[in-house]
């Protein structure tokens, strides 16, 4: 079970928008929610994102993973903010997070990573003359999204191993094996990429 949604094949209008435009829209939305400070308008933006899920035809069961991640996190943020800064700011911060993360999740559900990577490479092509290598950036984007899936798999494996030894509440019984797994994964992944010729081009 991965917390962030992976691509769900579909034919909805949202699926068919070119990846590059969708990515720009996502970035604009992230900027918008940072600029807008009214809870009402943030609520409207969040409502539009939710509408996007309906347009894309995403079944509720595919939102379970992200909901499990978002709800406790937002709950915690809301409580802390309310206590420190009052109800209004708490609502604003939480709506910002909710709108941005839900939109990012919707983006990954409706966009093939391959298409995003290609769009990033195409979009960055003019920066080549400044020494940027678009293929590398594209690869980085793809790997980052893949790493989220890999990390969450490793986290749940570590948690299972921890439970199996009934070390449920120990932080170090989770953190240390998780760190070791992560580092080993990074090392092995680097080697596998080199074997596939990454770095040779």
């Amino acid at each position: 079970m991965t917390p962030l949604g992976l691509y769900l094949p579909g034919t909805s209008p949202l699926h068919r928008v070119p990846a590059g435009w969708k990515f720009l829209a996502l970035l604009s939305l992230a900027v918008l929610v940072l600029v807008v400070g009214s809870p009402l308008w943030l609520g409207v933006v969040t409502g539009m994102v939710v509408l996007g899920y309906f347009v894309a035809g995403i079944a509720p069961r595919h939102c379970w993973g992200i909901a499990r991640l978002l709800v406790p996190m937002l709950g915690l943020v809301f409580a802390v903010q309310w206590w420190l800064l009052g109800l209004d700011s708490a609502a604003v911060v939480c709506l910002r997070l909710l709108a941005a993360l839900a939109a990012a999740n919707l983006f990954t559900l409706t966009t093939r990573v391959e298409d995003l990577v290609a769009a990033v490479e195409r979009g960055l092509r003019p920066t080549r003359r400044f020494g940027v290598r678009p293929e590398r950036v594209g690869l980085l984007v793809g790997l980052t999204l893949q790493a989220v899936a890999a990390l969450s798999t490793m986290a749940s494996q570590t948690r299972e191993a921890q439970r199996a030894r009934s070390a449920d509440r120990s932080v170090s019984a989770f953190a240390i094996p998780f760190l070791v797994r992560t580092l080993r994964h990074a090392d092995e992944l680097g080697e596998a990429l080199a074997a596939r010729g990454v770095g040779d081009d």
Partner: protein
Amino acid sequence: MIEFEDVGHDYDDHAVLDGVNLRLPERRVAFVGANGSGKSTLARMINGLVLPSRGRVLVDGHDPAREGRAVRKRVGFVFTNPDSQIVMPTAGEDVAFSLRGRGLSKSQRRDRAAEALARHGLDGYAEHPAHQLSGGQKQLLALCSMLVLEPDVLVCDEPTTLLDLRNKRRFVERLEQLEQQVVLVTHDLELLEGFERVIVLDAGRVVADDLPETALKHYRALIG
């Protein structure tokens, strides 16, 4: 052909390989040896992931130390851990990833990827999240992602160690069908059926190099 000319390797002033001289023209070559005997180090030298401290390695006359790129085009590599070899979210994208920079269009890449998946026991898995495949399927995917590049040599470093018996058998079946030269590092003597040559390593040296039966007698005596 793969050649090792008086190859040695040190990690922190400690020799883990020494005096290795081998010419490997056979289609099926295996390395066996205890943990730490230097098998992985030797295997990684074939595609330049590890460069020898002494001597040199040649693949069809190309030295990985100087022509890494040309060598990696010829040599595919399957590692032990299936989870670490997948770089894209879906099986199809992962195979297509291998074809980057080959001047193919997106749809050509996608077609070739689907074709490769179908050929190696993953028919219909192109859209499947790679991390939700079983261990054995992931290892087949790693194999696919290498084979789609049509290497002349496939090096596998204990590719079945983390697989269950059924998945192991499946993987081995695929290996047997390959036309390519296969260099296999393994602990599992069951995999050596059909191999033409088995090389036994001990503490960084070749201690036996023979037909499987004879070499394995040596190996069994060694680990006795």
